[in-house]
């Protein structure tokens, strides 16, 4: 009986709850939520549906929306309260509605709605992903044996094999001058000199192969090589010397990374070693100090990115730096857009979000940032550096100054001007009466602003004198003569004639005190020596009303028995003391100045492992405070070794380290399918003009497939297996090939059949990059300073880059050394498409804009270079109207690396004859016209 009643009561209860849902909850859901959270919504947001019970309980990407009975864990309610998300987005609902929802959830979230569709969540098939061409292992292909005799090297055989299957044939080789110009710009980024042209053309006429061998040997050994190839690498390392972002912090040590990169290419450092240094240079073993320094400078790569250090949400800042590191490593070395997996599984490539947070765990276990209002970054001290000596010298000097000061201090008695901030009453001899024990009439202001003072502070009259009097009174323990002294700190604003009256055993004496004058010992002014009787009051009164202009300072009065002679100072001694004081003050000033001139501590930008490395959570939908499950640290699974079943082998990272060293070894591993492929493609691109993979930073599904997959793998395999990752050997392989020599002037038939030149039947005509453009102008005008081969080139290091005046510090150094700031670039760099240092740039854009035309026509830089080139030319060339053609010929060789054609010669002849063959202006016009000509701006 009882149970039946209870049951029916429960039924009634349920009915009431459903009624509550229908009356108070459903209408709100329909009106405010369904627009974005129902099956038929145009865009379902956050993967969350609220239009049936099951789906609402299941929740969206952030987890369950409703936990029946537990309002505090129900995301829906928290979002309505604006405690997690802010929903609905346009306004907070009235408190009464929120209270309804709270009650509804507490009561069990009764909900009659059935059905509903789950939003599908994708699952990445890693096994299928590994089948994509770039994730497959690199296998050394057999070299084909094409029938024609065109091929010179194995590279050519791969290319020629495709000619034969497609029926296309290659164009002729380029001319000797064209090939030389290509090699020069390709290897060192500078135009050939007229001597080099003569030598090369002569050698070419005998044997083109040997001519190329010789020049390649010469250039690969030149320091200029690293400057050129280092700059290519700085593009993908998104190098800059400031942070960019809101307040663009200068990186005063970034140049070390730049120099390290240049040196690495010049030393032909094996590329896998460079990879390890970039990712984990701080964790690698080293045999020498210089090896240590090289490695810790290399890992600066992780810190150099664009970072908005003033971002106030430091957790967000931390995750954004980590994101930048992951994404940059992905693009630089692997050609993968791993950053896409931050919020969801990668839509195209086999990179689940878990892989992203596996890598994020590695970087959360790595310290890059030092938080602050404007945060900063980790640096590492260097062991070898010329600056060490300067620092050591500086330290010696500092010690010697400090010793001198200590010695002087012993000789100087008492207090000195402006030294001690306050003097403890107890430390003084005699009887001291502090202002805190005196009687004040009128309003006085307490202060501690200026030192020195006795006791807890002093008082001043604030320039208001009327009715302001002070009385110091004490009784002295013994009768006798006492020196009476008054302390006051001195300033020019003080009163110069302050009447002070001393009442003693024989009456009273009034003396005037000049408070503008430094007291002899810096603290106490002497009022005189007077007799006092034990037990009778000893009184000193001060009357501000009778003082002259200026502030009156009242601090303390000292009664010093004249028997105390260690402070009695003779006039001579007083003088000597004053001199000593002055010397001391000047030495201290010198020390201060010295401290400010401390040589920059040699240090490199970098990272270090956190003290407590740990795995990290998946951030659901990328939200930084939206933590999902923990994932073990690791890397991109699809590009990692597998077991017999084809499952990714566990990484087994050491728990007491970040895992960065293992990450470095994984990227630099010969079995990593991506690293070698991506790098050889970059080298091919710079030498040939287009990559075998035309999207050099994207080897994923959204990138392009290789035009010559076997050639790509051949290059990657020989690079790793035969050449031990030697970049110079790889470059040589490509430059001596016949493909490198193909003319870029295509017969029209070929280009119609293969408009994008995917079969490599002709050369690619390339725009001269801005560094080569600027360096060439400077070389031709005779101004290029090739002696600057590294070091800090920022003219004035300041906190931010935005005030940097490139003009003020302009120097004719190679462009790679020009200060390179994210928010303040040298103008010519910006105008001519330099790599955006905020992004990994495997291939620069090449725009053609009128702003470039205006720069070439009117900029002071262009006008100056043209004029100086003309002057330089006329200085080194005998002016002879009869030999005008020879002069023009010389100018063409200097600028375009070839003699003029008839079509070019004629207008120049008539122009020069008209303007005067000895006119600097006329020749300046010729140089400017040549600098702006398409043959100068393009490499054929």
């Amino acid at each position, binding site marked *: 009986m009882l149970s039946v009643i209870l049951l029916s009561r429960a039924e009634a209860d349920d009915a009431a709850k459903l009624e509550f849902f229908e009356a108070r909850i459903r209408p709100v859901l329909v009106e405010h939520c369904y627009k974005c959270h129902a099956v038929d919504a145009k865009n379902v947001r956050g993967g969350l549906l609220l239009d049936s019970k099951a789906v609402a309980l299941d929740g969206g990407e952030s987890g369950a929306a409703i936990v029946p009975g537990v309002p505090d864990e129900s995301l829906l309610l928290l979002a309505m309260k604006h405690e997690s998300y802010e929903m609905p987005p346009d306004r907070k609902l009235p408190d009464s509605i929120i209270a309804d929802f709270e009650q509804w959830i507490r009561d069990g979230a009764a909900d009659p709605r059935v059905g509903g569709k789950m939003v599908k969540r994708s699952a990445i098939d890693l096994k299928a992903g590994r089948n994509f061409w770039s994730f497959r292992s690199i296998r050394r292909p057999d070299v084909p044996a094409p029938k024609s005799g065109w091929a010179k090297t194995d590279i050519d055989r791969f290319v020629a094999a495709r000619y034969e299957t497609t029926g296309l044939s290659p164009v002729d080789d380029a001319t000797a001058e064209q090939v030389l110009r290509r090699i020069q710009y390709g290897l060192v980024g500078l135009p050939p000199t007229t001597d080099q042209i003569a030598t090369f053309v002569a050698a070419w006429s005998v044997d083109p192969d040997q001519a190329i061998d010789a020049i390649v040997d010469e250039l690969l050994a030149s320091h200029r090589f690293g400057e050129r190839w280092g700059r290519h690498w700085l593009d993908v390392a998104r190098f800059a010397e400031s942070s960019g972002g809101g307040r663009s912090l200068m990186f005063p040590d970034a140049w070390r990374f730049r120099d390290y990169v240049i040196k690495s290419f010049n030393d032909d450092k094996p590329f896998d070693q460079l990879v390890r240094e970039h990712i984990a240079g701080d964790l690698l073993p080293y045999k020498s100090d210089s090896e240590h320094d090289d490695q810790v400078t290399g890992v600066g790569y992780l810190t150099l990115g664009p970072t908005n250090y003033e*971002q106030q949400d430091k957790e967000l800042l931390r995750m954004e730096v980590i994101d930048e590191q992951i994404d940059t490593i992905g693009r630089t070395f692997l050609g993968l857009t791993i950053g896409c997996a931050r919020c969801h599984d990668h839509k195209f490539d086999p990179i689940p979000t878990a892989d992203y947070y596996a890598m994020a765990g590695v970087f959360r276990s790595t310290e890059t940032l030092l938080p602050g209002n404007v945060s900063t970054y980790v640096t590492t001290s260097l062991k070898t550096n010329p600056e060490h000596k300067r620092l050591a010298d500086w330290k010696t000097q500092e010690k010697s100054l400090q010793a001198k000061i200590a010695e002087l201090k012993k000789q100087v008695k008492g207090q000195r001007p402006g030294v001690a901030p306050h003097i403890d009453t107890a430390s003084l001899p005699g009887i001291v009466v502090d202002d805190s024990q005196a009687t004040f009439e009128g309003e006085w202001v307490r202060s501690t602003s200026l030192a020195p003072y006795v006791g807890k502070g002093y008082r001043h009259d604030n320039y208001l004198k009327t009715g302001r009097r002070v009385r110091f009174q004490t009784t002295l323990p013994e009768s006798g003569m006492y020196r009476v002294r008054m302390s006051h700190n001195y300033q020019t604003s003080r009163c110069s004639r302050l009447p002070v009256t001393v009442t003693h055993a024989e009456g009273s004496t009034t003396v005037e005190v000049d408070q503008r004058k430094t007291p002899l010992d810096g603290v106490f002014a002497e009022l005189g020596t007077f007799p006092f009787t034990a037990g009778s009051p000893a009184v000193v009164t001060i009357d501000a009303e009778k003082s002259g202009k200026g502030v009156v300072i009242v601090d303390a009065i000292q009664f010093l028995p004249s028997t105390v002679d260690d402070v009695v100072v003779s006039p001579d001694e007083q003088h000597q003391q004053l001199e000593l004081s002055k010397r001391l003050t000047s030495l201290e000033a010198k020390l201060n100045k010295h401290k400010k001139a401390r040589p920059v501590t040699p240090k490199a930008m970098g990272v270090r492992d956190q003290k407590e490395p740990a795995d990290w959570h998946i951030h659901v939908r990328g939200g930084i405070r939206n933590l999902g499950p923990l994932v073990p640290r690791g890397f991109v699974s699809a590009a990692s070794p597998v077991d017999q079943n084809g499952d990714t082998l566990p990484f087994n990272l050491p728990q007491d380290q970040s895992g960065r060293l293992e990450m470095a070894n994984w990227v630099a591993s010969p079995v990593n399918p991506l690293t070698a492929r991506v790098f050889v493609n970059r080298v091919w691109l710079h030498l040939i003009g287009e990559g075998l993979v035309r999207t050099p930073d994207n080897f994923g*599904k959204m990138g*392009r497939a290789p035009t010559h997959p076997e050639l790509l793998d051949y290059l990657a395999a020989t690079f790793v297996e035969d050449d031990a990752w030697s970049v110079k050997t790889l470059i040589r392989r490509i430059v001596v090939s016949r493909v490198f020599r193909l003319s870029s002037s295509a017969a029209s038939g070929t280009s119609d059949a293969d408009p994008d030149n995917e079969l490599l039947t002709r050369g690619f005509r390339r725009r001269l990059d801005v560094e080569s453009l600027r360096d060439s102008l400077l070389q031709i005008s005779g101004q290029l300073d090739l002696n600057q081969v590294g070091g800090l080139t920022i003219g004035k290091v300041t906190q931010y880059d935005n005030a940097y005046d490139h003009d003020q510090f302009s120097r004719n150094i190679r462009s790679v050394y020009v200060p390179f700031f994210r928010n303040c670039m040298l103008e010519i760099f910006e105008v001519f498409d330099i790599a955006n240092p905020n*992004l990994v740039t495997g291939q620069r*854009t090449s725009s*053609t804009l009128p702003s470039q035309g205006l720069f070439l*026509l009117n900029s002071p830089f262009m006008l100056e270079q043209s004029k100086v080139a003309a002057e330089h030319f006329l200085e080194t060339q005998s002016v002879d109207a009869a030999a005008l053609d020879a002069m023009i010929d010389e100018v063409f060789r200097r600028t375009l690396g070839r003699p003029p054609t008839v079509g070019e010669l004629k207008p120049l002849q008539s122009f020069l004859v008209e303007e005067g063959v000895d006119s600097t202006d006329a020749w300046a016009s010729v140089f400017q016209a040549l600098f702006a000509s*398409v*043959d100068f701006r393009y490499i054929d």
Partner: protein
Amino acid sequence: MFTHNRRSWLQNSACGFGSLALGSMLAEQQASAASAANHSLTAKQPMLPARAKRVIFIFMQGGPSHVDSFDHKPQLINSDGKSIDFTGVRFGTFGKVSQRSLMKPLWKFRQYGACGQHVSELFPQIAKHVDDLCFLKGMHTEGVAHGPSTLFMHTGATNLVRPSFGSWLMYGLGTENQSLPGFVQLQPSDTKGGPRNYSNAFLPSVYQGTAIGRASRSIEQMTIDHIRNPQLSPEEAETRFTLMQRLNKAQVNRRPDDDSRLEAVIKSYELAWRMQTDAPAILDLSHETETTQQMYGIGADKTDAFGRQCLMARRLSESGVRFVQVNYADESPNPRWDQHSNMPKHMDHATATDKPVAGLLADLKQRGLLEDTLVWWGAEFGRTPFSQSNNGRDHNPRGFTVFLAGGGVKKGFSYGATDEIGHEAVEGKVHMHDLHATILHALGLDHEQLTYRYAGRDFRLTDIYGRVIKDVFA
């Protein structure tokens, strides 16, 4: 002879700058293999019916106080000196609750126009136009410091490198006058994000913003870089130019192949030459009558500089420039409106900008340009209702006001609200992403469709956010 050639070149280049973009297009196709869109600056048809054709953004760098200007809060006036609990948003105080003292507005409000909009004594001239304005009083945004918030306002991201609003507009709509840049920044600041605020980021570089003048330079230097030859007489310059183009023609003609990039270079020189001739006239304000100049406050001490910027903006808009940003900006770490202490200084900035902005609104209206020009007045954030350093106010990204005018928005309208003291947006909330989406919508662009594929992902200005506030459209 040469003149003839030049003309024929120009005639042949029917789409002007458009064909110039070819060079970059070829190179950039690799970066966006899947997006075969033609990256040109030629005017394009919008996706949706457009209310506005162009935008003038008047940027009040530093963050003017909404509670002292347009957001009238009687409760704040009544609560002057009262303490409130405030949860910190900056480094060091993040998440910590402290007591802050409310400060009433320093200026008196009164109602204006038929709509009765409250405006304080700071902006008596703009106040006369309230019946043409559409106020958004429930704005909120990201970031707390100037740099992140300024970047967010321009690019929709506080830290990540993203294209500027104007670059997206160029990408979506191109521009109408091919001898002027289509996305112009007048006297931008090098600080608080600097050039990144008008950078194309990963969009093709034809879409980058062009700075005309810099905040650090005088108003007299407000011109296109290198628009004149500083050394040669016009005759000498032309002789040099002629020689250069002869050489170029000879070089292009010599080649057996037909490389459009080389033609594009020659054409870019032609256009640069034409810009030298045409642009200075458009940038020359002396063509305007004295009455017009006075309307903008030109000639008067305090308003001359900003008046010139505003008048320049009108001339550029009139000439078909798609996006003009007028910057009331400087190079200091505490930008102009950034009164952390000494709020009374707001009056100086109001005085410098009130008349010029009012003049621009009136001038656009009298010329019929306001019909299809959307004016956006605002900053990266607003200021707090409580005081800082005695008589200053701190940054407030949680609630602030901007106004729009023209371009099909409702007139004499106010949308959204902050709480009773003006601290947080509570009603009709418009996030900066929403404002971006709404302005794109006015120009006929769907913010969810205006995407660009870069590095394997389709990016958009509003990321995965943004709502079009349809209520603001008439």
